[in-house]
């Protein structure tokens, strides 16, 4: 099985440890990972801020870059949602017939990480060990756009030593919303405060998710408030094994 990793612009820049974890995890599962260095961004930030033409030029880049791949794995559900939900409309409006065909052929091969593991590889137990109490934050795009359902919980359930903390109001947004967190910083912060309260109340050591964007938002507030909790991308939990400091070996 060959898979191409689309790391996403912000993971590449801000959260390279997530990318390294995806590589470690998938190689451990026997996947032949490739990384195409021409990749940049999926266009979500531009699309959701109202820059359609700009979003389209990035969407076009993405489709051209990955048209010949067996599978594209993306450790960010909001970027997958962008590709799946918004690319068709963008290509309908701005693209040509050839590009629309290329997109339609590519879409079934684009996977969010938990989808790739469960739906494509058919694996729930990835051989991970992470002896900590963890709360899963269901990001809005994973929950509603991708309908990930119980996939992340099933993956977490098979991790050695891990105990899952139940979260109240799981379906409530953390208030990040991309440029929303800047344009409506105060409302975003009010939403964050409410979400953080639910998360901290679980008493978990780590808050995990399939989107580092939400985790950057939650983690930024945790750090500011000395909340005594950390954030970690699900890929990093799944990549952890009993081998000492796996990260350093990679």
């Amino acid at each position: 099985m060959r898979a191409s990793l689309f790391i996403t612009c912000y993971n590449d820049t801000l959260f390279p440890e997530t990318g390294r974890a995806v590589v470690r995890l998938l190689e451990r599962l026997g996947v032949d990972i490739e990384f195409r260095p021409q990749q940049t961004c999926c266009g979500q930030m531009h699309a959701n801020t109202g820059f359609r033409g700009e979003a389209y030029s990035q969407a076009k880049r993405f489709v051209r870059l990955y048209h010949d791949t067996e599978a594209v794995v993306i450790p960010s559900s909001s970027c997958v949602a962008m590709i799946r939900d918004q690319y068709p409309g963008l290509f309908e409006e701005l693209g040509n017939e050839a590009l629309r065909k290329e997109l339609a052929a590519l879409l079934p091969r684009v996977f969010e990480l938990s989808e790739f593991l469960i739906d494509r590889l058919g694996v729930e137990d990835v051989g991970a060990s992470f002896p900590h109490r963890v709360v899963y934050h269901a990001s809005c795009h994973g929950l509603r756009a991708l309908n990930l359902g119980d996939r992340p919980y099933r993956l977490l359930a098979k991790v050695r030593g891990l105990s899952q903390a139940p979260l109240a109001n799981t379906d409530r947004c953390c208030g990040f919303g991309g440029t929303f967190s800047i344009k409506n910083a105060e409302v975003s912060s009010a939403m964050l405060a409410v979400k953080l309260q639910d998360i901290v109340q679980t008493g978990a050591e780590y808050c995990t998710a399939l989107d580092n964007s939400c985790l950057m938002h939650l983690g930024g507030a945790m750090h500011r408030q000395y909340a005594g909790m950390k954030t970690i991308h699900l890929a990093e939990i799944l990549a952890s094994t009993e081998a000492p400091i796996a990260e350093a070996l990679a």
Partner: protein
Amino acid sequence: MSQTAAAHPQLDPTLALPFPQAALPVLRNPQLRRNVAHAIDVIQAKRSLLVAEKTDWQQLRQAASAIRAHALDNLAYYLEQFETRCTAAGGTVHWAADAAEARQIILDLLRQESATEVIKIKTMTSAEIQLNPSLEAAGIRVFETDLAELILQLGNDEPSHIVVPALHVNRSQVREIFARRMGLENLSDDPQALTAAARTYLRRKFLTVPAAIGGANFLIAETGSVAVIESEGNGRMCLTLPRTLITLAGIEKVLPRFQDLAVMLQVLARSATGERMNPYTSLWTGITPGDGPQRFHVVLLDNQRSSILSRPIERQTLKCIRCAACMNACPVYRQTGGHAYGSVYPGPIGAILTPQLMRMQHAKSLPYASSLCGACYEVCPVKINIPEVLIDLRAKVTDQERGRFNRFLDPMYLGMKIANFLFAKAWRFRAAQRLARIGLRLFTAGDGWIHSLPGLGAKWTQTRDLRGLPSETFRNWWAARTPVSVESNKEAK
């Protein structure tokens, strides 16, 4: 309470502050936020329970969505059919192109009746055209008969929700308003005592005022009937006691067939108030000699609706049946309440409807008043993809910006254009990553975190820290690593 009212601008999108600023006073008002969150949580919990008991909920949504879409796709046909049938049954149909025309039609009708007073059923459409102030200015006293609308009218306040307009007011505040305006010093804040006070106050009006104005939940093309759905019975009073009845309805309110109500009533009551069935469903067709109002007028309001209808993505906005499930589910509305939206239509539906009713000159901050979490779309009983419309409206706002000569002075606009330039070539993006790493070092504290950023970044760091940039990007790590071949990995196992 009058102080609260004064703190809110009129719900006039041409005057209202942009959403982020308008939200600030609410965010700083703990009482208001508690009122809103409590009310919403109660409705939400009831809704979830009653939706869950419908095993065919998704099919019902699909059916409701299809009925509304079909009506809109054939709107002219069904409106003309409604006009023909309603007229045949003794009603008079008026067509109003905009708010001013609708106000004038209603004013003229009331003048023909020599009415100096009018009673009203809750209608958001009348608030949309700012009917009450124009009637008052013409010397006609308006009495709101819906309990929540009465509270707002007496408290000189504005609606903050389309189903529960006084949702932001708690009962001790209601007691204060009623005690002051009705002269009832010893009134308690017991809900029964409050409704009894309202009942006494209103009963006189029901029995004496000769004209009523109401809205319509649905217009039935097949029969020329009008449907009003309500909880308190005040609507039933207004629809039966006065001699003249004026119904104001947006042109999108039409349903093709009577039997379509079977679907719409199921989804509406559950979505709006978390009830299996609303207490009062009034349906009437024209006039009945000797029974009820003897003069019946329907004012069909366009007010930008046909222009919304002409746009493929936005037209779904008109499927809305005003159940407010979207605002009850919205995490933004939960924090800000309705007044921050500066429009009679708040919440997610308001964020898409208001800018379109206003042709986007105003209210252009509203399409951004959402984190695009999708909770609104998930609960919408007629499946309006609100995030999709929000994004499309954002693109329209940006397209307006593109023509402005000083657009590059807007840091967000400039940032987006620069980012687009960088994302176009991987080498530019790599260079930007390097620059960012060096630049952000200046702001990174000893603990490896950024606590304060300038410019737009300050909007982030006002409440959150940001981890400093790691020393190596993922792509650099990948480029430098010795490839682990999968074959050798498998052998190692």
